[in-house]
């Protein structure tokens, strides 16, 4: 059981379904959603001194408007040291490009690259590995 999970994804249908699946697991108290990287980044920056508000897990899409997943990771890396909490990031993308996968793997902030669609079992594994 974890307190908070954040979805950073602009895909309404994916967000809708993923939220539903997570809710069914009863493993997460609070699910937050941001439609692009900038909104998520700003939330983290605003609450950098309130670790209890920050999520344990972020599911991060790559292709998003305003600020995409890569750009978010660049910015997140810069502030990660100042966050008083371990945030586990999973890149969660519809991309099947080997370049994208390789690029994500070398970013130490990224725990894994999950190719959509995401299953309930996979989500349970992810959450349990943290909790």
């Amino acid at each position, binding site marked *: 059981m974890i307190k908070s999970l954040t979805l950073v994804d602009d895909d309404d249908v994916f967000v809708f*379904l993923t939220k539903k699946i997570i809710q069914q697991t009863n493993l997460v108290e609070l699910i937050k959603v941001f439609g692009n990287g900038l909104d998520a980044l700003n939330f983290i920056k605003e609450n950098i001194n309130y670790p209890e508000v920050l999520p344990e897990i972020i599911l991060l899409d790559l*292709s998003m*408007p305003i600020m995409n997943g890569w750009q978010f990771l660049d910015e997140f890396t810069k502030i990660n040291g100042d966050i008083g909490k371990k945030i586990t990031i999973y890149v969660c993308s519809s991309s099947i490009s080997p370049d994208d996968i390789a690029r994500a793997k070398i970013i130490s902030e990224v725990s894994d690259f999950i190719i959509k669609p995401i299953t309930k079992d996979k989500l349970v594994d992810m959450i349990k590995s943290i909790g």
Partner: protein
Amino acid sequence: MENINDYKYALDESSIIAITNQKGIIIHVNDNFCKISKYKAEELIGQDHRIINSGYHNKEFIKELWFTIANGHIWKGELKNKAKDGTVYWVDTTIVPFLNNEGKPYQYVAIRSDITSRKESEEELRKILREISDYKYALDESAIVAITNQQGIITHVNDNFCKISKYISEELIGQDHRIINSGHHPKEFIKALWTTIANGKVWKGELKNLAKDGTNYWVDTTIVPFLNQAGKPYQYVAIRSDITERKNGEEQIRQNNERAVEHARISEIKNIQLVDFCNIVSHNLRAPLINISMLVDYMDQTDDNEERKEIQAKIKPVVNHLMEVFNELVESIQIKQDTEIEQEYVDLKECINKILIGFDTQIKAYEADIKLDFEEGTMLYYPPKYLDSILTNLISNSLRYKSPDRKPSIVIRAKRNEEHTLLLSVEDNGLGIDLLLHKDQIFKIRKTFHRHPDSKGFGLFMIKTQVDAMNGRIWAESTIDKGSTFFIEFKN
């Protein structure tokens, strides 16, 4: 008698004298004779005159000499004799036969003067001349040679020159050397050549010349100026060798290289397009498909009828979205394929004014100010459909992403840069795009940079595809909250 003694004295002092009898036995020599022959008089008197024979002259020559004097005639000539120590000396010789009462010679008086140094110089000169003529022969055989006077008028050409230039020498002598000028080399190059040789310096280089039949040939050329006493060139000797084959080979290699580079460039562009396409498929087509698949899966496993209806309602918009992306892709691929799209002369001002009519409502509502800054009658040879699409998209973006703080102001400029390019720019004072963040993204499909309900991320992708298809370039400059300028370079 006194007189005769005086003569004898003068002769002895000035000349080399020897007297032989009719058989050629020496009966008298003077001091000069001893000095030059390095014998003492005792060693000579009573000896055959052949003692000083150097063996240099052939038998016929000697025979002719004896024949002349034996017949009582005076012989004059130049003789090469041998001294006692084996060295040789040249003497200008006059042999006077003294005749008896019967008219037969009873003795010969030989009067000589030393011409060794003259003969040596002559010999040296001859040797040099022979050497020079050998050189000339070698040069004529091996090289293409021409000589011009200081004005560049041809005064001599060799056979090789005639052969390569396909002229006969009569057609060349007296002509200006420019008769073989191919016009290939720039004026500055030719000027530098003349400056060099006119200053008395040797010029070396490769020249492309023109033969009589209009064909060209390449020659490796050395031009040597010959200088007069004053140090000024009075003629120029040009020595050339034919390097046409090498030059043609080089040209072939250069062309092949150029072609290879062009091929590489095209494959690189193709490769980038392929990667882009892979990304598009991966992100933009796969995403809605996953949505559908996830929605269907969810529907299958739920027992709740209400929930099932809710899910079902979500499928249709995804399918519509998928269809839309799919159509956009097909449209962009058509542009890439449509290499023979019809081009026309389009009047830029007319085209823009027509587009602006379509935006009339927005322009009035926003009180937008639109300026056109280019010469009246600026024409563009371009597919009208593309030009319309490019300008419509840029103007539409400038209006859509206007700043909330100020009235939109748009300036459209066009300037003909070189002969064949036209630089068009659309400048606005709108929201601007963070290019540091989005520089690789701005022309990619489905990339949006502002929160706006109408943002689809298709317009800039589409116009870049159109500009690329016509070999043009598109780029942008932008400052957040100051505005954006989009530049398009039309190859025209």
